[in-house]
């Protein structure tokens, strides 16, 4: 465990701690608000394909994004709505990807959680777990080769994702290259239905850090301020050249794997344990307790956010759907090398 210091982190960012907490909190709240609408859309049959939520993981995810700076790289995973919003994603773009608007960043070609904007350092995940880690490494290598220093790359992986060869190769690669990678392992106790006992046998996933020769930190993922502290510290250490930072956060997924899943298999004892706390409620209580917000403001924010999401939905739902006959069916940037395959036109 590396020492963290609230004051230091806040100072580094040149903003008051309270401001940072509030900012991250607002991303959390927006994420929750957005996801609740997504659920309604899903139940209303408005979304083709799956809906995967980050309920219960907003504090961690938002804190990660709010620990990053302009020019940093972020490769979120399926439960990172909080981080996506914290990293500056427009809710409309998120909706466009779910609803398949051709005006969205993935132009209806890819969907739901598979969205991003590489030009902005916001990498669109592919499905295969672990496979974004080396991609983040590659961006960091590119920066270093061009003499750009002080960029951090952040990405997340689930408890289940740690079992992939890609996780291992990616983290090891970052360690060998001493890259400024912040890898957040989100131990939400399940991979789909699979409990951690079927996924790994170490006492704590943070025990992996020493075997890669990287800094490791554990974290209560339900506590926003702790998340901001630890992740702020981890990103700064990475930025200062201390190599990859492995942060293991514990919490519980407060939803199904996807909205099709009732999560009946989740152990009630876990739900009742501190892991099962709702980070949003915890954060709200803390804000109220410290007097950094009050019930009226919270309700107003929530209402504003609801309206924002609803108006985004109204906008995106009016957008055209993609026209398959005008679609550009070319998988290569080198257009002259695309073959017509006229036989597939029928």
């Amino acid at each position, binding site marked *: 465990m590396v020492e963290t210091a609230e004051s230091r982190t806040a100072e580094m960012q040149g903003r008051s701690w309270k401001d940072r907490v509030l900012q991250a909190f607002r991303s959390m709240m927006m994420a929750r608000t957005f996801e609740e609408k997504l659920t309604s859309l899903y139940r209303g049959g408005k*979304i*083709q*394909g*799956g809906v995967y939520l980050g309920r219960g993981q907003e504090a961690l995810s938002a804190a990660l994004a709010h620990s990053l700076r302009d020019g940093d790289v972020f490769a979120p995973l399926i439960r990172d709505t909080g981080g996506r919003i914290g990293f500056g994603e427009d809710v409309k773009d998120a909706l466009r990807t779910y609803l*398949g608007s051709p005006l969205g960043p*993935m132009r*209806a*070609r*890819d*969907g*739901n959680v*598979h969205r991003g904007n590489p030009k902005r350092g916001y990498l669109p995940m*592919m*499905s*295969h*777990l672990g496979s974004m880690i080396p991609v983040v490494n590659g961006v960091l290598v590119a920066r270093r080769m061009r003499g750009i220093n002080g960029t951090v790359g952040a990405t997340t992986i689930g408890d*289940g*994702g740690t*079992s*992939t*060869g*890609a996780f291992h190769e990616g983290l090891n690669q970052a360690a060998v290259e001493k890259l400024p990678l912040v890898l957040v392992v989100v131990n939400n106790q399940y*991979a*789909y*239905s*699979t409990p951690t006992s*079927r*996924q*790994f046998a170490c006492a704590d996933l943070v025990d992996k850090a020493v075997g890669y020769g990287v800094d490791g930190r554990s974290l209560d993922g339900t506590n926003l301020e702790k998340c901001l502290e630890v992740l702020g510290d981890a990103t700064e250490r990475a930025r200062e050249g201390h190599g990859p930072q492995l942060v293991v956060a514990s919490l519980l997924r407060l939803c199904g794997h996807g909205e099709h899943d009732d999560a009946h*298999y989740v152990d009630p004892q876990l739900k009742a344990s501190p892991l099962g706390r709702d980070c949003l409620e915890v954060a709200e209580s803390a804000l109220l307790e410290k007097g950094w917000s009050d019930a009226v403001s919270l309700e107003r924010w929530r209402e504003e956010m609801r309206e924002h999401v609803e108006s985004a939905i109204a906008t995106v739902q009016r957008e055209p*759907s*993609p*026209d*398959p*006959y005008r*679609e550009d*069916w*070319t*998988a290569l940037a080198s257009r002259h090398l*695309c*073959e017509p*395959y006229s*036989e*597939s*036109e*029928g």
Partner: protein
Amino acid sequence: MSITYLEAIREAQAKALADDSRVFIYGQDVGPFGGAFKATKNLAKEFPERVWDSPISEDAMVGMAVGAAIDGMRPIIEMQFADFSTVGFNQIVNQAGAFYWRTGVRCPITIRLPSGGTPGSGPFHSQCMEGVYAYYPGLVVVTPATVEDAYSMLVESVALDDPVIFCEHKYLYYHLKADALPSEALPIGKARLTRAGRDMTIVSYGAMVHEAIATAETLQGEGWEIEVVDLRSVKPLDTDAVMASVARTGKLLCAGEAWPWGGVTAEVITRVATEGFALLDAPPVRLNAKDTPVPYHPKLWSVHRPTSETMAAAARNLLRS
């Protein structure tokens, strides 16, 4: 009673487990949860210690199956989606595929690949990999298109002494129903004449068989009699059945859901062109998906893969030629 394609897969596994104590099932969420698609529902309860959850480690899943198989077991591996088998690719093609030829020791494993497109599945949950696996020596690759075949071919796959890539089509999981499980079945390696005809042969497999049948029905209304051949297994591929049909009709349309470069349709057309050239009254035609990743949006998707409409259009062109 009515049984879906998906239920048939479950029943086949239940039968394999019940009949042979060497059989076990290993894969992500296949245990108490019963699998992402519920293809192993209740099996962990019925066969404790023989159906259990793996970590998210496709490479090790297949490697473990090979070890168990060469030591006398008959593992079934469920990939959560066919697309994820790319991370277990090496163990499948190089370890399992080569083991028998290198050592003379049998490696009976069945790898279930939930394959193919459904609306909204997108680039990484829709792929067809049968052509990729069929390229490799030492693998049997099957593509059941009916509820009955899903059942009987899975039972047979588990009984075979070789690694079998079982490409079950997700689009058929719930769409397809049968009255009962079959008591008799064509063996793996034999194609089925799904529909007899006279004017043209459509060779297909997997979900595309149903587009072919729909095409034949449409064209029947236009006065044509179309023969539909369901390959059932793509390696081995029943050249005789294809050739016999082309001998009757003189015209061949081969349709697959996979990408257009190579794959099953090219293999079928090449066999007919090289071994049955004289049977052809017109150039053979193939129909495949477009050469891009599988799109997420259902509107894009429905144009990306062949459908009975594009198939009928291609067939009309061919009939007129």
